[in-house]
């Protein structure tokens, strides 16, 4: 991996830009951009987590946004009851999304293909309507969060730049984690099961338990994104869990390039940037977004990441 091509250079440049962004936004007096890019980073984490199961394991979860909601509501409900300490809120969110993902996975992974898509969609919508029914916590209207998670020390999340850097650090950390994971023994099993399930069973792998682990890990990571989203928006809403949101996450992954980890991050940036740009031009921006997405998917099969540089050939190692 010592080869320095166009792709790594572009990525390092992007990273430098991200590191400098809070300073630039302050310099240009455009705090809006700080919020926008923080939002992009949060969704990049969600898309990254989905790529782990979708891109590497061919598990097309159509209910992945549910974990965004679980993370957000863990923060919101605890804050509503006066518990604002991150060391309570965040573990609750992480354990909660891990537990829910495990349960959903246990049922969904008994199926495959279209049935898997439909079952995960059904679970996602169940959780959406559960959130809508929580009248005590705002129901349909959502739940306003007055105080962001308290981390203690110098990390004051009410400062936009601090939140921004925390989200960026978490994204980079999780990206590193995922990169190691997909190349390790565990990742090889997930990829093998995607490539040839029958062969995996014949070799002796109990693949469901590996898939379930990956599914739960991805849900947990997305739960973290939910925690960050709640802190960014000061709000927990059923809308975070709506099936269209799950669809957007899938679009981010495919748009950026499935099974590349970095691709879905780029996909999250691109989709949110497109939404932002088009919605400032016209009220009917979705009419234009659709064809643009279709064109990109048609002409760039391996997504934005694939366009930056073609995939390297397999080599022995």
């Amino acid at each position, binding site marked *: 991996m010592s080869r320095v091509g166009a792709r790594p250079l572009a990525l390092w440049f992007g990273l430098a830009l991200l590191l400098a962004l809070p300073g630039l936004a302050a310099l240009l007096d455009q705090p809006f951009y700080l919020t926008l890019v923080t939002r992009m980073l949060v969704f990049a984490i969600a898309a990254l987590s989905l790529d782990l199961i979708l891109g590497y394991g061919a598990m097309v979860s159509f209910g992945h946004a549910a974990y965004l909601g679980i993370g957000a509501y863990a923060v919101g409900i605890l804050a509503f009851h006066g518990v604002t300490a991150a060391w309570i809120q965040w573990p609750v969110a992480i354990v909660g999304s891990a537990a829910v993902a495990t349960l959903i996975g246990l049922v969904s992974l008994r199926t495959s293909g279209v049935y898997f898509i439909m079952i995960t969609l059904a679970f996602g919508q169940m959780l959406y309507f559960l959130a809508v029914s929580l009248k005590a916590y705002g129901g349909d209207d959502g739940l306003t969060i007055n105080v962001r998670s308290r981390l203690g020390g110098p990390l004051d999340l009410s400062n936009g730049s601090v939140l921004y850097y925390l989200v960026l650090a978490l994204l980079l950390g999780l990206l590193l984690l995922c990169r190691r994971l997909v190349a390790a023994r565990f990742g*090889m099993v997930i*990829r093998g099961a995607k490539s*040839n399930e029958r*062969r995996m*069973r014949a070799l002796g792998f109990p693949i469901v338990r590996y898939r379930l682990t990956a599914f739960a890990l991805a849900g947990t990571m997305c739960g973290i994104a939910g925690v960050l989203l709640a802190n960014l928006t000061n709000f927990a809403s059923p809308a975070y869990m709506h099936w269209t949101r799950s669809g957007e996450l899938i679009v981010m992954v495919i748009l950026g390039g499935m099974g590349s980890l970095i691709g879905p991050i780029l996909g999250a940036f691109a989709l949110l940037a497109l939404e932002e740009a088009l919605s400032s031009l016209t009220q009917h921006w979705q009419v234009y977004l659709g064809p643009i997405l279709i064109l990109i998917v048609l002409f760039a099969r391996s997504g934005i990441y694939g366009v930056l540089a073609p995939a390297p050939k*397999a*080599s022995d*190692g």
Partner: protein
Amino acid sequence: MAEPLLAASGLIKRFGGLLATDHLDLALADGEIHAVIGPNGAGKTTLVAQLQGELAPDAGTIRFAGEDVTRLKPHQRAARGIARSFQVTSVFRDLSALDNVALAVQARAGHSFGMWRPASSERALREPARAALARVGLDGRAGMLAAHLAHGEQRQLELAMALATEPRLLLLDEPMAGMGTEESARMVRLIDGLRGARTVLLVEHDMDAVFTLADRITVLVYGRAIATGTPAEIRADDAVRQAYLGDEA
């Protein structure tokens, strides 16, 4: 004879009205190469699938190494030492040849929940994988995607994967199918080299290969074993000549 490594008794498998396996008894002695021959539709692949666990028999039992494995799933039987190569080549097409075999080694190496260390840097996986590739003559192809290998090479790769799991029993379903003369000869030498070290159940249409390799042969016709014996006995068997070898013998 000592207790067989694998013993199937009274196996029955129906597909609707078709009796694909008909009260079949089969015993594989430890270390032997046992060929199963029979005309198309005799139920050879169905038999292999039941021994490996992909298909459940409607009746009968399968014992392997002294244990009743009739109800065990494929991955559980694989863990006990039953490996299979498929009639239609089954490899990981989007992985390199070496990664294919390394994954097979990994299947034998306990759990695979390692999430940090790159599998490609684990010598415990790579070295046995390279050795298995070399054994089937694919050492020069280690870095190639399995999808880019020639058909015969993919079959060799599949055998390397099966061998890498260090099985006690190899179920080979037409390993020579679609191979050229030279490739077939190479495969015969490979399987011959396993004699004594592994027990092999060989399903094959190539009669030269079968009679060269097999210690014993079972002849399957319409799901029934009509004869079992040494190659010489099978050649001399009237029922076999009539039912199957007729035009060749």
